[in-house]
């Protein structure tokens, strides 16, 4: 190598995560009024293009960040999970607004009380609806997460570790009560 040409040492993580964090393509799962704020977040005034996320991808194959904006019904939950499963790894998820995070004001039988019951959520945004700058804040949190915590090694984890069962199994609840190891209905009542 010519000694007059400079070179730089770095890690693959630093380069790949820099690229990933600055080109997050959101999958806009707009379900209710939060979706309007999400549009403002992508629009010219708040201009998320500054963070490289202006390309909303309505195809899950091309997206790596799902923004669930709005209340999610039990019927819609299955469609959301299906879209999430179709997204290519690595992927992140934002629960935007009170309804997506916890059910919000929709405390009723038809609305899922927080999408973290079936999706691995990385960032929750409070607000009803949250302002677009809050959504940008959440996006920056995701970027921080990618730069500091994510590693390309996780993309290539395979074999024993990937064949191992997930960390936690969902508890099954039937009309008779909780049917799972751990706490049962009686323990719940006793507490």
């Amino acid at each position, binding site marked *: 190598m010519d000694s007059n040409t400079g070179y730089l040492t770095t890690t693959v993580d630093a380069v790949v995560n820099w690229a990933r964090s600055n080109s997050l393509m959101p999958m806009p799962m707009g379900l209710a009024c939060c979706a309007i704020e999400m549009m403002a977040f992508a629009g010219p005034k708040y201009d998320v293009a500054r963070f490289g996320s202006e390309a909303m991808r309505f195809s899950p194959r091309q997206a790596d960040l799902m923004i669930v904006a709005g209340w999610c019904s039990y019927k819609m939950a299955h469609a*959301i*999970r299906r879209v999430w499963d179709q997204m290519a790894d690595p992927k992140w998820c934002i629960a935007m607004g009170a309804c997506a995070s916890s059910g919000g004001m929709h405390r*009723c039988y038809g609305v899922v009380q927080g999408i973290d*019951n079936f999706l691995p959520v990385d960032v929750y945004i409070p607000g009803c609806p949250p302002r677009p700058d809050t959504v940008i804040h959440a996006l920056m949190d995701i970027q921080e997460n990618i730069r500091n915590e994510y590693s390309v090694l996780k993309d290539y984890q395979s074999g024993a570790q990937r064949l191992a069962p*997930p960390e936690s199994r*969902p508890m099954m609840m039937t009309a008779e009560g*909780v049917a799972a190891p751990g706490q049962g209905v009686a323990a719940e009542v006793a507490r």
Partner: protein
Amino acid sequence: MALKFHFTPADTPRGGEDNPHAKASTEVADTVLALREVFGNAIGDVVVYAGEHTVWVEPARIADVCRHLKESLGFNYLVDLGGVDRFTEEGRFEVYYNLVNVEGQKRIRLKVRVEEESPQVPSVTGVFKAADWNERECFDMLGITFEGHQDLRRMYMPEDFAYHPQRKEFPLLGIPGSLPLPSQTPGGPLTMDPFAAARGSKPVKSYQEPQSTQ
């Protein structure tokens, strides 16, 4: 299906004070008289509240009354149809029909009451096509069956849902296990607990998921 039953006290009636917003279009005394002439005892009480006429109809004749109103008296537009759970011992369920005479600029409200044991009302879809989805909604939410409806499926809830959520004894947060959530991993079992996260279940990130076998 046997659900717990809690009784709530009834509100005291508010009395028939004059409605300052009442319109002449809701005064349909002549239409009520015309209905009485044709249907006689099938027309029950007629209540005038806040300048609006409400006609009680015998459930079995509701489709005939609607047909007569549409074809002879000009009430050709079904604005709304819906159900009420009054949660009383007698006449628990109520179905209301709001009709409009577009030409004559008149409105009339019909009501029928059915018992909890046999919540069956003849369908008016043969008269008003618009009643189709309203009756499906009413069936979905309250479990009132509309006899003669061509396609009485649920409107909102999944088709295998076992309950009627707008009935008063249905708990606000639903019945655990009746509406499954998606699986926590691709191809996994459905999440039957609607509060899985509150009980400590945390869906895993995709790189922690078990490898696909497909």
